[in-house]
């Protein structure tokens, strides 16, 4: 959300520059415009170069440790050269499966209600809409504290287990899923709903048979992008029990300690020994690969199933 707003500001500024160049308005408009364009280009270069540097550094450093030991072995502080991250990989899988099965039904249902049923003139509907947007901008550590107080302890008292992490991350990405699903549902033309209703279909059947199938690409894209945000989160998980050193896989969603890839990377990166830093770099490569795969899958789904109206 915040990124989007920043983008808007940048786009507006760029447009202003272009316009002032076109009509030659303002004293020295042309010169100022050139400087401004240069600044903008510099910003892009800095952003891309930083990302490239991080990736390149991790890749060069971690590449020697991209081997089967990484998957086969548990983390170890003794065998630094053969230590793996199996528990972190499994922990991440458990947590992410938990997030997916929780947040997709919840988020899609909420979006359907808000788009298709809620009366948008009611004050409480507008209040909910406003707060969903606010929620999307809340820092993730706040959700971590919430998870600690209400999920791991307090009313739910799940303990420090994988599903506590899943629920916390679900709360974190729920607003994003709701917003993207609403966009997808809104993109279905009302003429399709009317055609279905005019044939004698109920509103429920119309949503189930026409609106949802048509919005699957948008929902899937939003879901995958949300999950790829969740998979990289560390801070909220630290608060709900993702311990930094676990040498066994989770027993299940509701029992056993767990750790995740980013937590494990965080743990290794803070060690003084160089072998662990190499391991951290290898972990980053794995995480990046998973993220890129998920994002590519999202793009593929969007392109394959998008309906041209």
């Amino acid at each position, binding site marked *: 959300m915040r990124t989007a707003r920043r983008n808007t500001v940048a786009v507006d500024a760029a447009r202003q520059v272009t316009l002032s160049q076109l009509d030659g308005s303002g004293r020295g408009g042309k010169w100022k415009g050139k400087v401004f364009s240069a600044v903008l280009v510099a910003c892009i270069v800095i952003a891309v170069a930083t990302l490239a540097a991080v990736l390149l550094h991790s890749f060069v450093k971690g590449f020697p440790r991209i081997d089967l030991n990484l998957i086969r072995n548990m983390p170890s502080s003794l065998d630094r050269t053969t230590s793996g991250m199996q528990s972190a990989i499994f922990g991440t899988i458990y947590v992410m499966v938990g997030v997916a099965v929780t947040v997709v039904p919840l988020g899609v249902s909420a979006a359907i209600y808000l788009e298709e049923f809620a*009366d948008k003139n009611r004050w409480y509907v507008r209040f909910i809409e406003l707060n969903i947007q606010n929620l999307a901008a809340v820092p993730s550590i706040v959700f971590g504290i919430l998870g600690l107080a209400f999920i791991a302890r307090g009313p739910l008292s799940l303990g420090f287990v994988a599903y506590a992490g899943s629920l916390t991350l679900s709360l974190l990405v729920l607003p994003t899923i709701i917003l993207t699903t609403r966009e997808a549902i809104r993109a279905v*033309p009302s*003429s*399709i709903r*009317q*055609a*279905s*209703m*005019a*044939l*004698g*279909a*109920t509103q429920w*059947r119309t949503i189930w*048979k*026409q609106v949802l*199938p*048509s919005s699957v690409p948008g929902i899937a894209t939003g879901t995958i992008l949300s999950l790829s945000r969740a998979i990289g989160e560390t801070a909220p998980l630290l608060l709900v029990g993702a311990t930094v050193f676990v040498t066994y896989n989770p027993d299940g969603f509701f029992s056993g300690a767990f750790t995740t890839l980013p937590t494990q990377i965080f743990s290794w990166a803070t060690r003084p020994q160089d072998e662990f830093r190499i391991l951290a770099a290898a972990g980053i490569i794995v995480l990046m690969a998973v993220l890129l795969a998920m994002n590519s899958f999202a793009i593929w789904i969007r392109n394959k199933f998008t*309906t*041209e*109206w």
Partner: protein
Amino acid sequence: MTTTPHPKATPHPQAARRSVAPPTGVSVMETVGLNVYYGGFHAVHDVDLGFERNEITALIGPSGCGKSTVLRCLNRMNDLIPAARVKGQVKYHGQDVYAASVDPIEVRRRIGMVFQKPNPFPKSIYDNVAYGPRVIGMKVPDMDDHVEQCLRRAALWDEVKDKLKESGYSLSGGQQQRLCIARAIATQPDVILMDEPCSALDPIATGAIEDLMIQLREEYTIIIVTHNMQQAARVSDRTAFFTARPDETTGNRTGLLVEYGLTSQIFENPSDQRTEDYISGRFG
């Protein structure tokens, strides 16, 4: 069943291209004192109309005269607009479709609708036609056969029989509109409402739809809203002319029925000056 013949339907002895039987007294659909409001806005004022079996009735008039609103009351599609209120009665075989005991879903199963812009579902041609029977749980002995029958009646079968699995969007605009007609008759309604069905089509596609309407008249009661007076004159048996009257205090335009009669009479010998002005192109 009410048996009152329609008061404003004026039988015309020299009925034009087709001999139109005088109203049998049992209109398939009838509106009695129909008023429609959108919030505080009075959209349609006191409309009394009767629609006869196996006839095409055209609703014509300038923009904003409420003809589409009247059409959408007939199958309760106005229910989908939250602020819309309907007063008066809309009778289908004598039964008021706005009675509290009537389920709007049931009404729409019996009264089909074709929209202004062709709006096929983003599904295959086959599934577009099969959708209606499937969602209402209609008993169809053989769906393949039923789909073929509907496409044949919509004069589309020969053009699509080899590509039933292709998307409805692969068709041209006119073909899409005929697909929408096939879709509408698949649930076996006895009335078909058409809301400016040709306004998005070229003249050749329009001609095809008009021919189709004349064929469909043998089996269905058709009510069409059109902006195109020539179209009304070409296809319809009866014509209702609407106009809009500005409110003296608010300036809001309320639609009202000016004249209703045989198409030949409306076009050749209108009894109201406003109808004559509109027909002869002096306004609207």
